[in-house]
């Protein structure tokens, strides 16, 4: 059919939008192309530059004497003495061993603390997502459920996680459970509302197509609505990932015994700004890594989404 070729050429002409690139000088173009070939390397380079710039300004403030090293110690101070800093993470086992001078090495105790906190974030995030997506879909699926549940969810969603803290302790005492509960409760209500918003945003055309094909309500939800909201839900998950990291520290700073939040509390009580910044740096790296992993998963799971980032760069 002649139709095919005709369309194929117009299609490729439409996708090849290289106009903004042509406006740039040739040498710059070549530079961009070479960078694009080493995509991950250039990303790593920019990340280092971004962090380096921030640290550099801080160091400069210290060198000029504007930043008091007692209050705002620059990175080279709070990162230099890893062993000394790591010792404070030994709260990790103090309550188990009963002697702060024994137990794991500095590096080990940092790792134990990091692993404990990460586990709480991860478990909380997974629980909150599964619950929220389930309840969100159920709210739209069953009208009665909507009427019964949605008002309560909406009522509770503006409550700050801080307010749930005593509840967490009443219910779960100390240990992992209250910290995980805090993460779940901080994310759950927002994620339910986000799920509902995503469902409402599904193109009615897609639903109508399924309807004219004779799909049942269950099939429409299972085979159209759930895949259609996946991209948005992963976006919501990414946004909430940071929320989970924030709230887990609050939870840990109280009854939990060990974790990053405990270290921050210790640093606060012993007036140790270096330790605070050290912990902040560790949390930053962890959050960054989590986000990166999630983006990777996103690209794997949502293979059908085009990369819109590229389009914006051409503006």
């Amino acid at each position, binding site marked *: 059919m002649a139709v095919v070729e005709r369309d194929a050429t117009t299609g490729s002409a439409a996708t090849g939008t290289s106009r903004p690139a042509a406006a740039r000088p040739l040498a710059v173009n070549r530079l961009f192309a070479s960078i694009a070939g080493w995509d991950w390397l250039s990303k790593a380079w920019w990340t280092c530059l971004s962090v380096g710039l921030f640290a550099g300004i801080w160091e400069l403030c210290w060198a000029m004497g504007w930043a008091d090293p007692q209050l705002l110690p620059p990175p080279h101070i709070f990162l230099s003495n890893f062993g000394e800093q790591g010792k404070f993470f030994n709260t990790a086992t103090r309550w188990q061993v009963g002697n702060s001078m024994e137990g794991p090495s500095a590096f080990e105790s940092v790792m134990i603390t990091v692993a404990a906190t990460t586990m709480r974030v991860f478990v909380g995030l997974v629980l909150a997502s599964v619950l929220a997506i389930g309840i969100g879909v159920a709210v739209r699926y069953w009208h009665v459920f909507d009427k019964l549940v949605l008002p309560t969810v909406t009522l509770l969603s503006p409550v700050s996680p801080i307010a749930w803290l005593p509840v967490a302790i009443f219910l779960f005492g100390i240990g992992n459970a209250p910290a995980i509960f805090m993460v779940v409760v901080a994310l759950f209500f927002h994620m339910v509302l986000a799920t509902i918003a995503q469902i409402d945003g599904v193109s009615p055309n897609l639903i*109508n197509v399924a309807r004219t094909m004779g799909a049942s309500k269950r099939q429409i939800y299972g085979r159209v609505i759930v895949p259609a909201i996946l991209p948005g839900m992963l976006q919501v998950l990414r946004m909430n990932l940071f929320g989970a990291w924030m709230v887990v520290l609050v939870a840990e700073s109280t009854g939990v015994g060990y974790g990053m939040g405990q270290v921050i509390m210790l640093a606060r009580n012993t007036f140790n700004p270096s330790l605070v910044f050290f912990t902040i740096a560790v949390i930053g790296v962890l959050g960054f890594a989590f986000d990166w992993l999630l983006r990777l998963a996103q690209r794997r799971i949502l293979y059908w989404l085009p990369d819109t980032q590229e389009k914006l760069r051409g503006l």
Partner: protein
Amino acid sequence: MASDSAPHFSSRDAVVCRGVGKTWAAGTRRAHEALRDVDLDIAPGEFVVFLGPSGCGKSTLLYLVAGLEEATDGRIAAFGDPVEAPSPERSLIFQETSLFPWLTVWQNVSFGLSIRGVGIEERKQIARQALQRVGLAEAMDKRPDELSGGMRQRVAVARALAMRPKVLLMDEPFAALDVQTRSRMQDFLLDVWRDSGASILFVTHHIDEAVALADRVVIFTARPGRIKTIVPISIPRPRDPFSPQCEALRKELTELLRAEVDRAFAEQEALADAV
């Protein structure tokens, strides 16, 4: 006993509308009458184009025939049976792409079959046949975002054909395409229509499209949508758009439509003033 209360529909007609009306948000303050008192018979294998100003309710009528919306007045029947719910026999093709972006082309085409529980081998077979009919057999394993707008609409047509519909409902299917692609798509649609033997109800606001395609052109009045007149076209296909007959027809349709467009404009302005 049913024959007394229910009006008699001829089972020979593909679609029968009797006194069909639709009011959106009926009974509320935002109630707005989209369609009033539409009587229309469409024969099997007939190509009917709905032409009218924007917002005249022609798409609404299509949704009613599809069974996606319920008429507030009157009755609609397809092949003698009253329309109560959507059916694969009456496939609807939308203006915007309505392909599922997470499925490949062939999975999209066989979506309706998988809903029915047809096995994967048979589905693939039927999808391949349907795609061959729209000239896209080699795009089986592509994803929708790898296709051009025209190709995507052809896939949508293939998806409808895979269900072997008796009525194809098309809601400005080519409106988003450029002029050259659109005229190609019109030729293509005529081929598909001839092969399939289905009736086509085609909504457009392009007079050229009506001239190129229709057996009959149904012209709608502006709000509420009513049938103003039905213009039969007897020009044999393929039609040369620049032939004197087509020119005359285009002029006639333009005249008929102009009054309605003017009225729709005047009403919209009045509405804007009121707000």
